[in-house]
């Protein structure tokens, strides 16, 4: 318990140091663009691939599980849409991104720590936490919602593709009707708001673990794993809290 409180205190102090006005705005924007490209844009392909396949599988599985003639076929499209909008594209996708981006951030900052690159910045009088962490947090908070929108779009495309396959009992027309049935726009906003919070969780927790590495390559690897585990847990916890706050 003591250790957990100590870590929480360290995390808060690091965020206090990181979330301040940048020393040089031009350098901040340069870093921000780099981070958006490296962490966000580079994750686009994996988001698209996963979303298409999962969207397809969700549609097929729902159609196979709805065998009652009393349930209309458009329910498949409707359920697929709700799953993708409400949970998959935001929470599940961010759990996947926590693995990819979180480990990347923790290992990058951790390596900088053990090779004295962070000390070099501090000696120059640069606020290393602000220079390294803030662009990552802002970059992810800006770009992860974009990835989530891509995920929603491609996930639904995957579902539509499944509706063309024979043997599932659904038709493209009924699927499309289901997609539009009782559509609540707020669910899209709900997903986007959740993803912004998740982006902060991924970037800040991974940065914390990387920034506080002590030792060598082995510890960098451990920090990377710890960052993914902790940010995944925090995403799930935030999911419960946000769902309770926003949907009930």
């Amino acid at each position: 318990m003591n250790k957990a409180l100590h870590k929480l205190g360290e995390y808060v102090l690091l965020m206090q140091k990181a979330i301040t006005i940048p020393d040089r705005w031009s350098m901040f924007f340069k870093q921000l663009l780099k981070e958006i490209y490296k962490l966000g844009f580079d994750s686009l392909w994996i988001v698209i691939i996963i979303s298409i396949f999962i969207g397809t599988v969700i549609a097929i599985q729902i159609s196979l599980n709805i065998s009652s003639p009393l349930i209309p076929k458009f329910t498949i499209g409707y359920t697929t849409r709700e799953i993708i909008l409400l949970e998959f594209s935001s929470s599940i996708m961010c759990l996947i991104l926590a693995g990819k981006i979180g480990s990347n951030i923790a290992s990058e900052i951790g390596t900088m720590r053990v090779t004295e690159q962070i000390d070099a910045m501090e000696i120059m009088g640069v606020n290393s936490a602000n220079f390294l962490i803030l662009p990552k947090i802002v970059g992810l908070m800006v770009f992860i919602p974009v990835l989530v929108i891509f995920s929603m779009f491609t996930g639904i495309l995957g579902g539509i593709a499944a509706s063309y396959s024979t043997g599932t009992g659904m038709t493209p027309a009924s699927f499309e009707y289901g997609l539009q049935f009782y559509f609540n726009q707020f669910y899209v906003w709900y997903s986007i708001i959740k993803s912004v919070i998740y982006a902060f969780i991924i970037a800040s927790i991974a940065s914390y673990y990387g920034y506080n590495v002590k030792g060598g390559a082995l510890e960098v690897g451990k920090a990377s794993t710890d960052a993914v585990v902790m940010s995944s847990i925090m995403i799930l916890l935030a999911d419960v809290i946000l769902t309770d706050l926003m949907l009930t």
Partner: protein
Amino acid sequence: MITINNIIKSFEGRTVLKNISAEFEEGKTNLIIGRSGSGKTVLIKNIIGLMRPDSGEILYDGRDLTSMNKSELNMLRREMGMLFQGSALFDSMTVLENVMFPLDMFSKKTYKERRKRAEFCLERVNLSDAGDLYPSEISGGMMKRAAIARAIALNPKYLFCDEPNSGLDPKTSLLIDDLIHDITVEYKMTTVINTHDMNSVMNIGDNIIFIKEGVKEWQGNKNEVISSDNKALNDFIFASDLFRKVKEVEEEELKAKEHKTI
């Protein structure tokens, strides 16, 4: 000039620096020597403010680092350059970008002027051709030179070097030593070098401080170090065969001279 007075630093009840006082002179290469674990790195980290001493003063031309607040310390740090043991170049930047980094962060010059200054610094360390390469694409010696170029980019008053020759062959080590010495004299910097390389001691030791188990044992220059009668210093210096033989030859020459005189 940097003056340290009565520095004491302890870790978990173990005193690592025991009341150390010394002066590091301007325009000279000041060497801190001693065995591994003697407290050299802790001392240099205290001097540059990465650690705070338990007691004592660290005066940068009269300004006490130990009583500075964060913003004052940051201002002072802009007058410092540091060469780390592993060079600590930023992996994600090219050599030129590395040298430009402190200028980008703190200089009010235009981009052209900053780039010109960075290119000048690279030229000064004979690395003009390596500007577009990444640190992973250059040798250890080139990395050290690039780190020196970055350290001098803002024209610092104080230069700190932590084991500048570690991992380098003797010839490259000499090159780095000469470069640090030349730059120190040229820009009238106060340079503090943490080393246990005896070649550096004999080559550029304008002012040498020998530390043993956290205590300052001896202070002098490269001309005095060989003839010192301090036992701990002699044990450290003549630990290698080469320097033992150098001393034997010197002693034989001295005896021969005395014999001739008689």
